[in-house]
Every structure is written in structure tokens, then in C-alpha cells.
């Protein structure tokens, strides 16, 4: 089953390009064939028709060819030998109101040599949205609705079976937030029975755009009605991962995007689910949404993954499931996104304490539902009992329902063992509260 991503605005296009990069390199590293083919089918389409033309290299071709080619080569000045190399084109639609970022992303993709964006699947204008949500949602979105819907329709027609859509955007700017909300609305209208999982990037709390709080609040309010689930990454948290976990001295947006892409790919790459009966799941978005967004009022999801380390250190580290899962559980409860500096003092409140639903009762993060995805060696022997503890969940959903477990015996992105946790919990409450408070203060002035 295939997933179509719609990349909106500068952030969406940059993160999307990194995401496809991670997925294509993960699916290629001598992985097991079923895993690779399911992953490729999900995110790329193969076009062996428009193969790459390669310069004839006499050292690589078999002898028979050489003889023939030499004869022809005497006549022609240059000789090109057509090799049909399967080209993987991403199932993606790129939308932005100005052309620079899309050009940059498409060039970078083509340079990777493993995959590229289809030539005709992008849409751009000359002038950006000016960080104005209203401009994106009410003016530019409707104006370009037909063009964007056409691109999406063409991409959907290339899919055998459509698993759903993943619009990727940031909430701070104008195009991602405004046009992105409008495009999500269109997807909902045109494909009412498909799953729509929005991936959102929240900006730094200390400001990237002055009106970011207005744009974020307007976007979230609309998306909550339109989307099936909202998977959120915050720039602040990802920045901390880069600086403290990966020990990068100079962090660029590329580094942030790679971390986000790694976590997102960890969620979206093929896995064996309880419903998929021994094969890789064909309905990843549907199963994710049904596992986590169990109540229509609770749609905000956050992700964290373990381990996260500089790629140079991976070869020197050993991993064990008990250690990884113990850290991951504490990361969930204490609401941090990294293994460094976990607060081991935070514990779930004892059952006898009653319903004291305080925002930060001792810093404890209560969950509604969790999805745990384990990838790598010995997955079947991993002990996940810690995540079934009723104390970390709300009382109105039995823990057996609240926890979903997906497994894949194939190692992911060079980690021998890795785990990703997508949770529907209180983790995003504090940033959301801050965002709304600042937007309201700005609005209420004068």
C-alpha cells in the first residue's frame, strides 16, 4: 500500500527530502528483500522507462559489446551506451509559493543517485506567502487549488492501493501553515475515506517568526477538525537532541531535519503489526491512527526514539533490549526526548492517590495510548511489560488496549536494535499552552 506525501512550504520540503533520503538508504543497505520491496512500494514508484543514460565505459562492458561498440565508436565522436537503471521516483507532491526551496530539494534528491522527485510533481509560484496564514489559507490556497489537486490526483493514480496522505509542514510560516491547512481540507474533501496524518514542525519558543503564534494557533484549530492525527516535532526538542545527544557543535537546519527524518522513518518503515497476520502491514497509517487516536478530541501525537547517537559511535556501542526499553519508558514518563539527563525520580503516581489530574504532578507525563515499534535483532524476545503498566495510562482505557506493539526483525538505519515510541500523551501540553498564551497576549494588546 502506498503513501503519498505532500510537502508544503520551506520546512515541509526540506524535511520531506531528508525523509525520502533516509528511507531510500535504509531500504537499500543489503536489507531483506521483502522489507525493501514493501518500503519501496510504499514510498517510491519505479520508472524503468526513462532510464539513465550512461557514458560507455569499456572496462565495464562484456567483450562482445566492446567489439561492436569499437566499430561504431570509430564513426561517432562520442558513444553513449544506454543502460536501463531503475529510477525510483518519490510518491510526493511539492508545493511552495516561491521556487528556491523546491529547486534546491529536487537537486539534492537527484544528486543522491538513489532516488529523485518526479519532474512534474511540483508546484511553485513567484512570491511567498509573507508569513501570513490568512494569505495562505484564503487567497493562495483557493487560487491554486485546481493545480495542486491535479498533481495529487496524478500521484494517487500511480498507486495500486492508497494507504493515505502525509502532509508535511511547519506551523510558523505562511505557506506551510496557511496553504497547508487549505490543502489538507481539499484532501479531506476529495478523498474522504483515506487517512490523513499531518506531520507538523513547531518553531523554537524563542522565536523564528514574530507572528508564529498566530499562525500556529490558527493552523492547529483548523487541522484538529480535518486531520486524523497530528504528529508533532518541536524544533526546541530536536535542537537539544542534536546538541546534547549527538554532540554536534554547529547545528544547522539540515541536522535538525535529519533527526526528524530518522524518527519519522522509524515510524513509517514496514513493520509487522498484530493485525497484519505475519506479513508487513499494508495499512500503516490506518493502524497507527486506530492505535493512538482513540478519541476524536485527542489527536496530538509525539514521537521519540532510542538510541540516538552520532553515526561514528554506532559501531562501538552495544545495545540490549532491556536497557533500551527501560530508558524509553522513563523518557516517556518524564517527558524528555533524549537519553541524556533523564530524570529517574519521576514516577507514576501511586494508584491510591486518586484522580489528581494536575498539569505537572511531579513532572509525570500521563499517556492515553502508546505505539511501540521495535526494529532489529531479537525483537521477539524483547520484554515490553513496562509499557503495559496501568499506572502510566488514564483509567478509562485498559492498558491492553492502550499499548500497541509493532515489530520488525530488520535493523533500521544502521542501528542493530532500535525502538520508536509514538505516544498520545500530555507531552505537548506545555508548549501548546505557551503558544496559546503568547498568541492571546499579542492579540489582547490594545
Amino acid at each position, binding site marked *: 500500500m502506498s503513501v503519498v506525501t505532500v510537502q508544503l512550504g520551506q520546512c515541509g520540503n526540506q524535511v520531506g527530502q531528508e525523509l525520502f533520503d533516509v528511507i531510500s538508504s535504509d531500504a537499500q543497505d543489503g536489507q531483506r528483500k521483502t522489507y525493501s520491496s514493501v518500503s519501496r512500494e510504499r514510498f517510491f514508484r519505479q520508472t524503468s522507462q526513462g532510464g539513465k543514460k550512461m557514458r560507455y565505459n569499456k572496462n565495464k562492458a562484456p567483450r562482445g559489446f566492446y567489439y561492436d561498440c569499437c566499430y561504431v565508436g570509430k564513426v561517432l565522436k562520442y558513444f553513449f551506451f544506454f543502460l536501463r537503471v531503475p529510477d525510483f521516483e518519490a510518491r510526493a507532491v511539492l508545493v511552495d509559493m516561491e521556487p*528556491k526551496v523546491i529547486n534546491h530539494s529536487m537537486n539534492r534528491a537527484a544528486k543522491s543517485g538513489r532516488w529523485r522527485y518526479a519532474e512534474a510533481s511540483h508546484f511553485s509560484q513567484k512570491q511567498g506567502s509573507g508569513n501570513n496564514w490568512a494569505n495562505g489559507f484564503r487567497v493562495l490556497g483557493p487560487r491554486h487549488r485546481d493545480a495542486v489537486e491535479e498533481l495529487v490526483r496524478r500521484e494517487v493514480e500511480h498507486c495500486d492501493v492508497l494507504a493515505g496522505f502525509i502532509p508535511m509542514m511547519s506551523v510558523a510560516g505562511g505557506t506551510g501553515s496557511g496553504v497547508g491547512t487549505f490543502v489538507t481540507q481539499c484532501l479531506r474533501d476529495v478523498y474522504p475515506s483515506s487517512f490523513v496524518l499531518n506531520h507538523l514542525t513547531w518553531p523554537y519558543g524563542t522565536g523564528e517568526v514574530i507572528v508564529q503564534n498566530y499562525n500556529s494557533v490558527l493552523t492547529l484549530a483548523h487541522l484538529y477538525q480535518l486531520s486524523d492525527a497530528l504528529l508533532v516535532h518541536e524544533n526546541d526538542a530536536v535542537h537539544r537532541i542534536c546538541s546534547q545527544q549527538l554532540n554536534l557543535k*554547529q547545528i544547522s537546519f539540515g541536522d535538525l531535519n535529519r533527526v526528524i527524518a530518522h524518527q519519522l522513518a522509524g515510524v513509517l518503515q514496514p513493520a509487522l503489526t498484530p493485525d497484519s497476520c505475519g506479513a508487513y502491514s499494508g495499512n500503516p497509517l490506518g493502524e497507527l491512527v486506530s492505535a493512538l487516536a482513540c478519541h476524536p478530541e485527542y489527536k496530538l501525537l509525539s514521537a521519540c526514539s532510542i538510541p540516538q547517537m552520532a553515526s561514528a559511535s554506532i559501531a562501538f556501542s552495544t545495545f540490549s533490549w532491556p536497557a533500551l526499553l527501560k530508558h524509553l519508558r522513563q523518557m516517556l514518563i518524564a517527558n524528555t526526548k533524549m537519553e541524556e539527563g533523564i530524570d529517574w525520580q519521576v514516577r507514576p503516581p501511586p494508584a491510591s492517590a486518586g484522580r489528581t489530574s494536575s498539569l505537572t504532578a511531579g513532572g509525570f507525563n500521563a499517556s492515553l495510548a502508546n505505539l511501540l515499534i521495535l526494529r532489529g535483532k531479537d525483537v521477539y524476545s524483547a520484554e515490553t511489560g513496562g509499557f503495559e503498566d496501568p499506572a502510566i495510562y488514564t483509567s478509562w482505557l485498559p492498558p491492553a488496549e492502550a499499548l500497541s506493539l509493532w515489530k520488525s526483525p530488520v535493523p533500521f538505519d544502521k542501528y542493530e536494535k532500535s525502538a520508536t515510541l509514538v505516544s498520545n500523551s500530555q507531552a505537548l501540553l506545555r508548549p501548546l499552552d505557551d503558544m496559546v498564551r503568547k498568541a492571546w*497576549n499579542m492579540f489582547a494588546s490594545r
Partner: protein
Amino acid sequence: MTQSVVVQVGQCGNQVGCRFWDLALREHAHVNKRGLYDEALSSFFRNVDLRKSDGGDCCVGGRIQHLKARAVLIDMEEGVVNGILQGPLREVFDSTQLLTDVSGSGNNWAVGHLTYGSAYREAIVNKLRKAAEHCDCLQCFFLIHSMGGGTGSGLGTRVLSLLEEEFPDVCRIVTAMYPSAEDDVITSPYNSVLAMRELTEHADCVLPVENQSLVDIVNKISVMSHGAKPGSALRKDSTVTSGQGSLSPTEKPFDAMNNIVANLLLNITSSARFEGSLNMDLNEIAMNLVPFPRLHYLVPSLTPLYTLADVNIPTRRLDQMFSDAFSKDHQLIRADPKRSLYLACALMVRGNVQVSDLRRNIERLRPSLPFVSWNQEGWKTGLCSVPPVGHSHSLLALANNTCVKPTFMELRDRFTKLYRKKAHLHHYLDVDGMEQSIFSESLSSLSALIDEYHQLDATKARLIPDAQRLSIAR
């Protein structure tokens, strides 16, 4: 990619504009190694193939044939514009872009605004329209003029209101040169206050620049370059410090000061022209930095002003650049923003600077900068990967700050000193269409503006509680 048109009015405007085009050509020559007419070049220049019969523009992607600036040059006396046309920049302009007259405005705002404004209205609108038609997607008009003279302030502000009438959707960013207290034009307070009213009402953003600050900055640079310390030789190819490598062989008197202003314009548009990891377009400037329509005066500051020729220590130099941007020595008007209230601040960084450097410096500087209560973390940031010529990175800070209030109050004081005695008033009132009420209206507009800034200043020390709202149930 969008295009912008530069409209330069008066002697000061044309001299600054001349430096701007010179530096723009240098910058693009530095970046564009292959001689192709790319999107970045098209934002300020047209590529014209003179052999084509319709004088046709070539589109993006071909080789550079002949570059013409997207500009309109207006001056009521011929000296400056003729000087440009005889200088090395003559190829870049053609006669359809120029509008000149013979006798000048006599340092009289009324002559510029009313007499020449009405006489040349049609001609000006035609030239603007032509320039706009050559653009695929016109985003912004940059108007450069001085406030103290007659043509720049009078005719310049008339052009501004024409732009608003004819092209209401296009952003108008004005670079206005404010006179210093020791200005040699006696009537400059009158001209400035009369022009200020037009700027407050018709411009989208104004970047005020004061001559005195430019003089101080240039002096500082020359002190540095004449060897305060041994081994501290300055790099000679920077666009800010020197016109070296530029088209004209000798530097003219105001060139150094005008260079700084020209760099300001280059840096503002850099993120719209070149790519970067966090783009900032021109329409985002007004969107983010102007909280209320009349408070659109943005104090610019540009760093670094010079680079030492020896190998620089990256991180320390970078942090120093950020600190300098907020010090009062680097502001382009005489003001101390750190002591006044910030309504909003934009940081446009060029070169090899990453988001972690930006974050670190914002967090470091934030506690010492007073921000207004409803915009506590109000930063707009932009990262462009292409550095300016001669530097490895640079920072342009645009602050909407109440520190402009003292500047405006001084201006008002100088105005009232003359107005009380009705000195030189008859020159203005003699002009057809000019009335005394225009003076009093301009004065009250300026006073109202000062008042608005004052209201905001008053909230500075007070602790404003969060506004009432629905909160999360606890």
C-alpha cells in the same frame, strides 16, 4: 523569483543609488561565475538583447547580453544624473528611465511636492509603469531620498503617494536620509517634517538613516584602517569599506557613507535573491515588524563593518558580530536601542552561520534587551547562505524600537524653533497650492506619532499581567 524597482529621487537619492548599483553589480559578479542571467540577477536587472527590434528582454537562463537596471532616476537638476550617465554606470541605465529638469527645487519642499509634482505627474507615472511592466512579478518599490532637501523630500514623497495610488499591492520600502542637527540646509526641519507626514501615511516601511551616524561609522573604520594596532590591516575588498574593485577609479567624498546605505539595501534583499536554510522574503519584513500601521520606522544596523585581514577566529568573531548589532555605535541613526523598548526585531544573517549560532546568540542577548510585553520573544530570523563580498558572514538587524522617538522629538523642536518665528515661511507659501494648514497638519501628525511611541514606552517598566483567557483545567 520576484523583482524590485529602485526609485531614486534628488541628489542624495541618486548618489546613494549610484553606489547601490555599483555594489549590486560587484556582488553578482562575485557570485555568478558562469555569466548566466539567473533568477537572482533578474530581481534587480533586466537582460536586454539590443539586436532585437523590440528592444526585447531576454528571459532567465540565457547568457548575459546587456544588463539594464530596474530603476527610475528623478532629479530636478541635471548635474548628478549627468554625472552618472558619463560615469562607468552609463550602460546600465537608458534614457527612458530618467527624468530631469534644469533648475532644481531650491531646497523647498513645496516646489518639489506641488509644483514639480503636478507638472511631471504623467511623466513619472509613465516611467514607473514601464519599469513595472518589464517585471514578471513585481514585489517591492525601494525609494531612496533625503529628507532635508527640496527634490528628495518634496518630489520623493509625491512619488511615494503616486506609487500607492497606481500600485497599491506592491510593497513600498523607503530609505530616508535624515538631516543631522548641523545640517547646512537651513530649512531642512521644515522639509523633513512635511515629508514625515507623507512617510507615515503612505509608506509600508521606512528605514531612517542619519548622516551623523554614517560619519561616525566611517571615521571609526578609517581609524581602524590607519593602523591602530600593528597587524590589524583591513581586508580591502569588502563592499562596505571601500569602493575598490568598483567601476570608478577614485572615491568621491560621500562615497564611503553612501556605501553603507547601499549595503543595507543589498542585505535586505539578499534572502529573497539567494537561497538559504531559512528564507525571508520582503513581504515578510512588513508583516512581522510592523505591529500597528503607523509605527513602521525600522532602525537598521549593519555588522561587521570591516574584517581584519588576518585569519579570524570563527566563533568569537561571530558572537561579537551579534553583540555589535545591538550596540549604539552600529546603528544607522543616533539612538540607543538597548535603553528603549523593542516592539519587534529582525535578524538577517548572511554567510556560513547555522541555526545553533543564531539560537545561542539570541539567548545570550535576550535578557539585556527590553521587549514589549505582548511580544516577549519577538524575533524574526533569516539565514541566507551567500555571504557578501569580502566577508564570510554578516548580520543586518532591523529593529522596530521606540528609540526613534528622541530623533523625532528633536526634529519637531527644530521645526518649532523656525515655525514660531515664521522664518522662511513665505518661500513655501508663495508656491501655488501650498497653505499654512499643511504645516500645522504635518506637525500634528508628527506629534501623534511621537505620542504613540510614548504610550508604548510607558508600558516598559510596568509588569503587565497575562490577559484573561480560558485556561487548561487543572
